[in-house]
């Protein structure tokens, strides 16, 4: 009975597949917010008239002016330009981390999901092991032993995060592997390559996209938190977390030193979370609509 009602209520949008964008405000806000940041980050060298690293003690703690749109920090550096180059660093690192994570995780997930058996059992043991070390703690260990640096931080995040993608892809492959369209493809003479990349992997695209959208936010938070603790980006790098840490001693006299980087982090992460939420609603709707019988 539920299927009948669902079918009546969820009639597909008349004008085909591209109405979902307008029907989903979350996705819209997220994308537009992100677009603004992308613009800022890329035009950093254009707008940042001032050098983010140029120390000028005479200009210390200036209030916002034409020359310094957001004023200057305790070392007289232009906050606005530091924020922009900070955006480039943060988004750049996150992109690199996520790229590496997907390059490792997705094929591993495909392999374990499709091959199963010993490889899969080995993978699951590895997962149990690495899951015992939460990202944050591993970052602390790596920073502690190998010295705090952005590279070490990225390494420790990648080391744990790839598992998330491998598990999602593995889950999808295992669920789809016995479905009739896969059996029909095998009977139709499809080779393993076609089964993996034409039939199985595309099913994992939407869950991976949703996971990635939310992961961007998580990675940015992890990197900035650790930089704040002094375990990530080292001064004078204009990384938002580190900037927030520099601003801390002055938070009574010049609270904006602490305000701007924090707000920047939150807005970027919020943008990605909005996109993630929007994507999940859209893809979920398609999933639910595709799922129920005709």
């Amino acid at each position, binding site marked *: *009975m*539920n*299927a*009948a*009602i669902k*079918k*009546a*209520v969820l009639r597909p949008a008349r004008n085909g597949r591209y109405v979902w964008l307008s029907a989903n405000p979350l996705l819209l806000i997220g994308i537009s917010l992100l677009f603004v940041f992308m613009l800022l980050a890329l035009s950093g060298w254009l707008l940042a008239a001032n050098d983010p690293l140029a120390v000028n003690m005479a200009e210390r703690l200036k209030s916002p002016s034409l020359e310094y749109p957001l004023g200057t920090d305790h070392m007289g550096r232009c906050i606005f330009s530091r924020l922009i180059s900070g955006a480039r660093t943060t988004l750049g690192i996150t992109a690199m981390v996520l790229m590496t994570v997907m390059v490792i995780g997705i094929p591993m997930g495909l392999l374990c999901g499709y091959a199963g058996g010993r490889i899969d059992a080995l993978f699951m043991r590895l997962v149990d092991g690495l899951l015992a070390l939460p990202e944050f703690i591993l970052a602390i260990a790596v920073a502690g032993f190998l010295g705090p640096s952005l590279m070490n931080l990225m390494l420790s995040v990648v080391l744990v995060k790839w598992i998330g993608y491998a598990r999602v892809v593995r889950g999808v492959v295992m669920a789809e592997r016995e479905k009739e369209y896969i059996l029909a493809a095998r009977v139709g003479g499809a080779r393993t390559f076609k089964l993996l990349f034409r039939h199985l992997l595309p099913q994992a695209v939407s869950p991976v996209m949703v996971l990635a959208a939310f992961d961007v936010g998580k990675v940015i938070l992890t990197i900035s938190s650790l930089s704040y603790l002094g375990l990530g980006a080292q001064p004078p790098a204009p990384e938002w977390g580190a900037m927030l840490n520099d601003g801390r001693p002055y938070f009574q006299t010049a609270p904006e030193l602490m305000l701007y980087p924090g707000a920047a982090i939150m807005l970027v992460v919020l943008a990605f979370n909005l996109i993630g939420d929007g994507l999940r609603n859209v893809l979920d709707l398609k999933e639910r609509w595709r799922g129920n*019988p*005709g």
Partner: protein
Amino acid sequence: MIKNPVLQISGLSVALRAHSGSWIRHLVQGINLTLYPGEMHGLVGESGSGKSITASAVLGLLPGSLGITEGEILLNGKAIHRLPEKAKRRLRGREMACIFQNDQGSFAPFRKIGKQLTEALQAHEKMSSREAREISCEWLERVKLPAQRVFDSYPFQLSGGQLQRTSLAASLMMKPSLIIADEPTTALDVLTAEQILDLLSGLQKKTECAVLLISHDLTSVLKRTDRMSVMYGGHLMESGPTASVRRNPLHPYTKMLLKARPPLDGFMPDRLAAIPGEPGAVADQGCPFAPRCPYRKEACVHMPASGVRADDHSSACLFADPEGGDSIAAVARSDQDREVVWR
């Protein structure tokens, strides 16, 4: 002795409601159906015909996005669909019960069957859990199940057939006057399905309760029900005593449905009389079956299908005997010799 009807549905319409509260589209329109004690009424239709929505409307379990726009539902003479939720809840299980399609799960997987049965009993009458347990086990015996073991096991430990029998026991033990069986055998294979339906009609005779059997399996409806109604696109196409509908179907859709089934015995045609088009193809106005009806005439597309009455054998088709030619106001030449008025 004239028994007063258990269930009377007149002019029932259900529509899809937009968030703003306005009605978007009608899913079910103008349903008339009467059910007497001890009678089994078959409600037949393909997917998307609205038969399950009608059942949910009677039970008062329509999802939020659907609502009853017009019509009356009388259970033992009392109008029920405008009752407050609390009053409706007291009726459910007590006066009317429901058996669902099996694989959709009639019992919560993480709680023992026993607990779910006694809970339902105690929701209606003050009784000790020991007493509730006894009644439950007694009914589990009646549906030929190892009562003690089933009472203490979890749903996933029972087979499809056993679960459906438990569901039957759960509905009957409160001695409701009406049971709605919504596709009870669809998920079961043929032989188990027959046993369940035998059990249902047997227990129905004993308890004199009325049964509304909703199914897309024409064969079992023809074999077991006293009266039947055929639905298409949210409308009633035909309704009447099952024997009469089987021997002399009035509506083209019913005729073609009966012929579309591969016959088990007797002459085997080389090709089945398939109905062209898809079950979803429903006309927005005029007769809903018009797009797929080979006897379609000019009037069918404009004129709304005539109402199907709940008492005798009548059909919604404007041309009562389409094969007989194009007479519009035709007198139905079925053996009851009633007149079909064209509006």
